Each structure stands twice: as C-alpha cells, then as structure tokens.
C-alpha cells in the first residue's frame, strides 16, 4: 500500500495532514512519540513520520467523507486502557476512524494500537503498512507488553465475525472472545466500551461467500452491491462509554469470565441502540 512511499510523497502527505488538523499537531504528537531509535522507528515498528503521512487520507475520510462525530471522547482515561468496540463494515475502517479520533481530538493526542489478525501478517504491503502505523498482531503477549507500557489498545472482540457479517445481522453483536477480559484483569486495565454507528451501512454485504473465501485463504469474502466492498459515505458516530474496571482472577474459568464479558457486551449493545435512536439518517 504505502510501503515504499517516496520521501517527496511522504512530505506532501504530511503537509496534507497538517493542513487538515492544524500545524501544531505534529508538535503535540511529538510529545507522545514512543521510544524511537536513530532510524525513527519504535521497537514495534511504529514510525511516527510515516504514520503522519499515511494517515492523511484517513483524516480526509474522517472529516469529509464519513464526517465523524464523537461523543464523550474525554472518558478515555490516561495511561493503560483497552478500548473495546463493535466491528463492522467489511473493511476495518471503523478501527481507522477510532485511531484518527484519538489522534486528532483527544488532548493530549494518543497514538492507539490496535490488535490485528495474524492473517494480516501474510499479506504483502498491508503487513508492513500496519506495522509502520503502529498496529500489531493480536497475541496476548503483545497486548500485555503494551499495557505495561501504559498504552491504549483497541480491540474488536468479535474479530472477523463482526467485520464480515452480512446485512441481516447489522448492529447485532456477534460472539465476543474472552481474551481481552483476561488481559484486562491481569494488567488491571480499565475497559472503555465503544460503539461505532454508521460503519454497518458503508458496505452492505449480501452474502459471505465462504467457499471462495476458503479457497483464497481469506477469513471471509463479502459480496456487496458494488462487488468490491467500497464504502458508501455514511455518517459515522462514535460513542465512548464510562470506563469499566473489573476485578478477579485472570485465570478464572471461562464461565466466570463470560459473565464479565457479557456486561461489556451488553453495555456496547445498549450504546448502539441509543446511537441508532439518536441518528436521524444514515447519511447525515
């Protein structure tokens, strides 16, 4: 994707980023820069300069295409935190929009990490792009390490089950994995529930072509009216809930963790319901 962006192009994109968010942003973002070495990357492969260039088109999408509105973003506490969100839209633009929101609207800005599928690592260009902008393979070990470094992590406990779901299942949360709860308990990390409204309608999937997906080695393959899952200009609304702090043993039985996960899931579902009621139209 953007792997071998020429220096000139990178500079132009950074200029575009600055023009959209104000030139003081680079200075603000520098304050939160991670431990970079002489080559400008942190140990996880995050490259701030590259990220500020690569994020430009996503900021444009954020401001002018999806016209994202955020609600209660200030509820995200400083220090280690898990942002737990619903996942939808065939392409993980909901993740990108949360990342842009935290970078451009939070004060101080936060470069959040999201945990991506292992499958991503096998894709050319996508894998290197993801690493440079700070996204990391979702292993428990990686997550633990980042929380200990007081970072903010975005997780989608539905994973591809949520992302690739078809139109009739819209805004219905799919099964949640338990992994995020174990990590939250282990690292005593607050969970901020997040509801994204609008991503569901960006690329309605009529059917998930499972057989073809399997042949291609993809986790899912949507068939949308536009054939490719091109996003429509729906309006995004991102709701941030009150931080939830759980206590208990991280190695508890699944049934015990299930109860806690169900609380998070119910909170997100009710935030989705509220968001849908408040919304007047999909595109405005």
């Amino acid at each position, binding site marked *: 994707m953007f*792997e*071998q962006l020429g220096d000139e192009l990178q500079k132009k994109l950074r200029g575009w980023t600055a023009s959209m968010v104000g030139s003081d942003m680079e200075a603000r973002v520098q304050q939160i820069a991670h431990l970079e*070495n*002489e*080559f400008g*990357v942190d*140990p*996880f*492969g995050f*490259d701030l300069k590259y990220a500020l260039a690569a994020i430009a088109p996503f900021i444009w999408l954020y401001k002018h295409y999806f016209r994202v509105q955020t609600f209660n973003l200030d509820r995200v506490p400083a220090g280690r935190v898990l942002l737990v969100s619903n996942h939808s839209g065939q392409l993980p633009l909901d993740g990108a929009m949360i990342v842009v929101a935290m970078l451009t609207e939070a004060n101080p800005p936060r470069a959040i990490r999201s945990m991506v599928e*292992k*499958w991503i*690592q*096998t*894709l*050319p*260009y*996508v*894998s*290197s792009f993801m*690493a*440079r902008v700070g996204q*990391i*393979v979702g*292993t428990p*070990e*990686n997550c633990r*390490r980042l929380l200990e470094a007081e970072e903010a992590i975005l997780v989608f406990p539905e994973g591809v089950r949520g992302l690739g779901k078809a139109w009739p299942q819209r805004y219905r949360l799919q099964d949640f994995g338990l992994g995020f709860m174990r990590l939250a308990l282990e690292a005593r990390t607050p969970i901020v529930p997040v509801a994204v409204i609008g991503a569901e309608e960006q690329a309605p999937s009529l059917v998930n072509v499972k057989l073809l997906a399997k042949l291609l080695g993809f986790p899912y393959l949507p068939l949308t009216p536009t054939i490719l899952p091109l996003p429509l200009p729906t309006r995004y609304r991102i709701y941030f809930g009150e931080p939830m702090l759980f206590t208990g043993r991280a190695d508890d039985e699944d049934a015990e963790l299930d109860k806690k996960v169900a609380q998070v899931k119910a909170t997100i579902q009710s935030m989705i319901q509220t968001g849908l009621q408040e919304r007047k139209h999909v595109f405005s």
Partner: protein
Amino acid sequence: MRPAVVVTGISGNLGRSLAKLLHKRERIIGIDRRPFPGKPKDIEMYQLDLRKRKAEDVFRRNDVQAVIHMGIMHDPRMNEEEHHSFNVVGTTRILEYCARYGVKKVIMLSSANVYGPSPDNSNFLTEDAPLMAASRFSEVRDLTEVDMLAYGFFWKHPDIQTVILRPVHIVGPNIKNAPSNYLRLKYPWVLAGFDPIVQLIHVDDTARAMIEALRPEAKGVYNVVGPGEVPLSAIFRELGRTVIPVPHLVARPLLELMFKYHLASFPPPELDHIQFLCAVDGSRWAKDLGWKPSYSMRETIRSVLDE
C-alpha cells in the same frame, strides 16, 4: 596449571573474536577442526574433531573450569547427515565430558533463529516461547536439537551452571553467515510488500556476551539482543543498496531452482526471515547481566562492509 576455559569452534570468526578478548584473562584451550591463523601464543590449540576420543583427553589432562561451546556448523551445502552428526553428536560428547570431568560452567551458543519466523509470532519472543523453527525450516533442525540437548543438560545437572545464549542475527566483517552475506549483496531481493523488523548483533558484541556468561549471575536460557530493532528497509537504506522487490509467491519457487543449480547460496526457507517476524525480548539478559552492546545500530549495520 591454572584452570582452563575450553572454547570449541575457536577458529571461526566468533571464536577468534572471543579468544582475543579473553586470552589475557583466562587460560584458553581451543578445539577446532580448522586451523587458527594468527592465534595468540598463550592459547593452547587442539586441531581435532569433537566426536573423536582425543577430545576427551583434553578434559582428562586439564583442570577445565568452563566450556564455551560454539562448535556448531551451518552450511546449507554440506551433506545433511554429516552436518547433523557433527552438531548433535559433537554437542552430546562435549556435554558428557563436562559432566564426567566436573566442569562447573557450560556456555552454549544457540540462536534466536530457533524460534523461527512466523506470521503468528509476537513482536518480542521471550525465552519460554516454543522453538518452532524446525517446523518450517528443516535446515535449522540441528540448531534446535542442540539447544534442547543443552536445555536437558541444564535440568539434569543442577550442580553445573549451564547458560544457553540465543543471540539475534550475528553480523560483522568477514562473517560468512546467511544474514551477513545477504546484507552484502549489491542488489538484494526483498519480498515485495514485506518489511519485517530485524534485530542484528555485532560479532564482537556476541563474543562479549559469551564471555559475560562466565559470570556466576548467568544461569539458564537467554535471548541476547544487540542495539535494537529496525525494519529491513532501513538497513538497506543505510547500506545504500538497490533492492529488487520480488512477489513472495514467485520468490520461493524461483529461489528453490536457483539454489538447486547453485545460482544462489541462500536456502529457500531463509526467505521466511525477510517475510515474517522473528524478534526476541532480550530484557532478561540485559537485567541479569547489566548488558549493553558496545556497537550502535548504525555501526552494527555497517560492519558487514568492513574487511
């Protein structure tokens, strides 16, 4: 006679570098099949095969306080059986002699490659991560086996301090291993769209680490990391190389053919290392031994250019 430190594989680049750092402090006995040109005078040298009886005589006749075992061979062109026998039988013998002749400290050179590159890997593998290299890459089977032999020895002989070091890719002037050779290519292949984070360590830093492991604080398995991590593309930028991006689906079969007909010296599974992550967490070593590499990242990268 002073107690001695036996160093196997002393004639290699790493062995010679280690010998030069250590010979003023300790009495060194070197064992290697290869000659050691330019050997410091105070080093006793036995040019022999570890699997031979004569190697045992070295232990029988001397008071050996420690063994630094680096007599491991990596040559993708070598006959597989001979390769395996040299590495695995050689290591088994050395460990036997250590137990039999009351050696107090055994330091084994392993490699961070034993974890194996994989799309499933965490960004920083700790010492307890499974050794998966052999599943994709049978050429490093020896390496994994040697590491596990040493690990078994560590548990079986609690009275002997066994240290297993798993350094990241070793590079340096004149080093002829796969990573150094790769970085020396004028027009290196890269896999289009893949740019994994890579860790390198200078050969002299590796030698220093092996010597540090003689200290009593060192015990057990350690990942040893050099000056940190950089994307592969940054390394080539630093070296001023023109890279040739090859689609990964084409690269593998192509390299297989080229390797078969001796047009390339890199065995095809090595491609995993430039496609996926195999980076390790060296914090245990850094904490226990107060370890700091002496070469910066830039110096480490550029060291492959020196003669």
